[in-house]
């Protein structure tokens, strides 16, 4: 049942122009950033050649590209996730799911997986750019794989947060704005000077900050605690969304 809901969600995304526009614009911007990065690499390559453990092409081209992609997708994710539940509620189609023999968990998972499939496709399109370097050089495939996985983990958290807010907020546009605010806050929360301290707030801020978890992963420093951060964030948001949909039946 989850798959049926996810497939419908994905299909409806592609039936509206927005998803195509987002794919086109994001890929165009990232392709430009990629080419700029390649240009930088070719310029500094002669100087790198002399260094003993010089950074490779993947580190110089792919890692910054994925970091830039994470930033752009933070802006883009709310545009797609805000409709997930809020628009169905407003359009009167949520009742179809609520009266069907499916659980709230299946509804939420269906929405989440449908949206995540779209973003995973986007992540693969981004990955195709540095992968194309294989035509002329030898990219570090393991590092590239780590970058794709990191981006998908990050997008999974984005989508889960978006689905939660879309199920909790009546107005879809308000849901988009709140999702955007939440994602941005999680990104900039470590800007406070507090993070440098060992106080409880400092530790908490360091832990909550998204950038502090994905930047090491993108740089190729794998820590299971960082991966766990995204998994936990995703699961908590999805569980809260299920709880919110169940509350609809009790209070609606």
């Amino acid at each position, binding site marked *: 049942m989850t798959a049926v809901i996810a497939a419908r969600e994905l299909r409806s995304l592609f039936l509206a122009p927005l998803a195509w526009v987002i794919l086109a614009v994001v890929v165009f911007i990232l392709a430009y950033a990629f080419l700029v990065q390649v240009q930088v690499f070719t310029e500094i390559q002669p100087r790198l050649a002399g260094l003993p453990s010089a950074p490779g092409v993947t580190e110089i081209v792919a890692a910054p590209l994925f970091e830039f992609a994470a930033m752009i997708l933070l802006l883009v994710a709310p545009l797609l996730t805000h409709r997930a539940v809020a628009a169905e509620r407003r359009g*009167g189609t949520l009742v179809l799911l609520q009266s069907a023999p499916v659980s709230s968990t299946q509804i939420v998972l269906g929405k989440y997986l449908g949206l995540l499939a779209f973003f995973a496709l986007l992540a693969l399109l981004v990955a195709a750019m540095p992968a194309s370097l294989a035509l002329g050089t030898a990219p570090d495939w393991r590092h590239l794989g780590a970058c794709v996985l990191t981006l998908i983990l990050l997008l999974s958290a984005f989508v889960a947060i978006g689905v939660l807010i879309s199920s909790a907020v009546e107005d879809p546009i308000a849901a988009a704005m709140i999702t955007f605010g939440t994602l941005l806050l999680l990104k900039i929360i470590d800007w406070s000077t507090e993070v440098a301290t060992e106080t409880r707030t400092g530790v908490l801020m360091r832990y909550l900050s998204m950038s502090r978890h994905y930047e090491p992963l993108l740089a190729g420093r794998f820590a299971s605690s960082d991966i766990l951060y995204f998994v936990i964030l995703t699961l908590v948001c999805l569980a809260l969304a299920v709880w919110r949909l169940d509350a609809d*039946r009790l209070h609606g």
Partner: protein
Amino acid sequence: MTSPDELLIAATGLSRVYGERRVLHDIDVAVRRGEVVGFLGPNGAGKSTTLRILSGVLAPSGGTVRIAGIDLLEHPIAAKRRIGYLPEQPPVYRELTTDEYLRYCARLHRVATSEAGAALARVKDRCGLQDVGARLIGSLSKGYQQRLGIAQAIVHSPEVVILDEPTVGLDPIQIREIRQLIRELRTDHGVLLSTHILPEVQAVCDRVVLINAGRIMLDATLAALSDATRRWRVRLRRPPPIETLKSLDGVQRVDMLDAQCFLIAGPRLDSEDFARRCVGADWGLVELTPQDRSLEEVFLRVTSGDLAMEAA
């Protein structure tokens, strides 16, 4: 399991509280297989809330719902497989085509992929949607969208069909078609439909449940209702004194229309017996006509608080 009297919806003691406001009080609803039950009441009486509870969209604050013997609150998934529900607004995705949408609904209601094609063909045929299978739902007229709403409610052949104001916003021809469809559904389903259109109840329902301000005011078969509220117009050439008429078996009330014409009320009045008495007493019986009171009259009397319903 498929006895004609099988209870498909058995709801007892339903109540619903929104914050401080109690919108349903102790509602009992029973729908049997082969029966169309009309849920009638003024706007805001609690019809939609009750239907939302019966379809599992809303949880009741108190009471139980059993769908074909399965407790809806304890086993929602199993119970919901047996329900088809059309909410007030048809729950359609405007960006899908009719076929895509119905296929999705069939899958959502656990119709196997291999059977979905046949289910779609059957339901499109039944609801007159054969020609719009490839059309986008957003481009369909209100009437077609309403039919599509009914189609999604029956695509998985549920035992219970719950329709919230199925003919609202339709033109007279479409209304006739939808009513015909509802009458056909009766053969293998139990149907509960809400409406505030009285002739609709008379046209399609076997039984009427009248609800007002969240309480059930009346629950009677249409036949019993018309028997109970029936009056007889009697014309006698040589009428006896009105007291004599009043004392006859089964007569409750006699109104004199003119010197020879009377209006006699009595739910248990047997017309054959009455005619025999008139002839036997040589009152010169020239007319004995049943006068069915309209449902509208009953509705207005019940909702205005006059609860002295002989039928109840």
